[in-house]
């Protein structure tokens, strides 16, 4: 064995966590070459010295501090990226649902607001009937379309709520050159567990976004404005903006 091969074999043995002194080839060469012997001794000394390094320990309350920090920081803001997609998904669902209804048909009366879903109920205003008459009375069609729309709204909201439950810890990045997280907004409920509070806080933006999406869609409907009337307002309180401009 030549000296330049010795170090390669030395590394090979150390990579496999084997003692090089137990390798016959290495041991034989080290017996014959003082320089290589010293190199092997240095490598062994590194391992020995490493095992003798003092191991400082962290504070005993690290676990509790981590728990407090988790509770102190806001819920991951990364879920906000769902808001515009929720609006788009809701728009697509409504488009598909109302695509086959006859346009420009009069509506007898608006459907009552639904207590279960905090979304506005559209009033469909129709133009004069086309040449082909519908197979059912116009009022029935309107009621069916409205109920269908309401069902879709409920389903969309349920789906979005389910998505947020499936993604409880949406942190984006392990490349940790991110900026520090934004300042927290909602106060922490001292009586709730920290993670429960985070999940509950995370659902609220989605509910608000869905409400906002429905309101947006309602305003975009081509005949959503009743004659001489005003647009119905969303029943929920705070309506979140549809497009988030803050970064994740």
């Amino acid at each position, binding site marked *: 064995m030549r000296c330049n091969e010795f170090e390669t074999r030395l590394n090979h043995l150390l990579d496999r966590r084997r003692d090089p002194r137990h390798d016959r080839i290495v041991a034989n060469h080290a017996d014959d070459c003082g320089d290589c012997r010293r190199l092997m001794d240095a490598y062994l000394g590194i391992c020995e*010295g490493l095992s003798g390094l003092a191991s*400082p320990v962290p504070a005993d309350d690290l676990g509790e501090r981590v728990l407090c920090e988790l509770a102190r*920081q806001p819920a991951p803001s990364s879920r906000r990226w769902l808001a515009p997609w929720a609006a788009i998904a809701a728009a697509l669902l409504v488009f598909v649902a109302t695509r086959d209804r006859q346009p420009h048909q009069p509506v007898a009366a608006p459907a009552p607001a639904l207590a279960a879903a905090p979304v506005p109920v559209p009033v469909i205003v129709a133009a004069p009937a086309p040449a082909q008459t519908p197979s059912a009375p116009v009022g029935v069609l309107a009621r069916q379309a409205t109920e269908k729309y309401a069902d879709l709204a409920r389903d969309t909201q349920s789906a979005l709520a389910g998505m947020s439950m499936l993604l409880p810890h949406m942190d984006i990045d392990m490349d940790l050159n991110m900026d520090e997280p934004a300042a927290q907004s909602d106060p922490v409920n001292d009586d709730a567990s920290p993670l429960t509070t985070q999940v509950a806080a995370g659902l609220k933006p989605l509910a608000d976004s869905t409400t906002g999406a429905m309101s947006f869609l309602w305003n975009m409907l081509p005949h959503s404005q009743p004659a001489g009337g005003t647009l119905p307002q969303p029943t929920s309180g705070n309506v979140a903006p549809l497009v988030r401009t803050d970064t994740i």
Partner: protein
Amino acid sequence: MPDNVRELVSRCLQGDGSAVVELVDHFRGQVFGLCYRMLRHQQDAEDVTQEAFVRALRSLGRWDSSREFSPWLLAIAGNRCRTLLAMRSRRPPGSPLVEDLPDRSPEPAGFANLAEEVELALTALRDEHRAAFLLFHEQELSYVEIAAAMNCPVGTAKTWVHRARRELADQLIRRGAVEEHAHALQ
């Protein structure tokens, strides 16, 4: 990986605060040890250790349970350490950032002080060499795990460890911790 780690992770995902504390206690030695060796500062190491655990717990749902938990956690800690080291390098000179190690004169040290010599030699390594070396020899990760933790090819991780060994060996020899040698490769 012990089954209790998977169970702990599962309980953490369900919001069990006691499981969070237990998980931290289980791995805090490993994580803090790596941070301390990389940052060479007790307080910084504690802060980064805490931050690493917080980040890991917030992204716990993304951990692949078919893999070992420790390398994944150490990868997060290593990233945080490198971020802090990069911030340090941008700070104006003169800031007392690193705890002073004992100033040892170049005298034959002997193996009785070998640990101190190794610790001193570690400070002279490049950050990535030191991190890879410690992950291999102290945390006993494989090269595949180190590569994943440091986001580099396996060959690069291996090269870093080999270079670290060579530089440490040269340092020990230079300072007389092992016998002086003058070696010319043939």
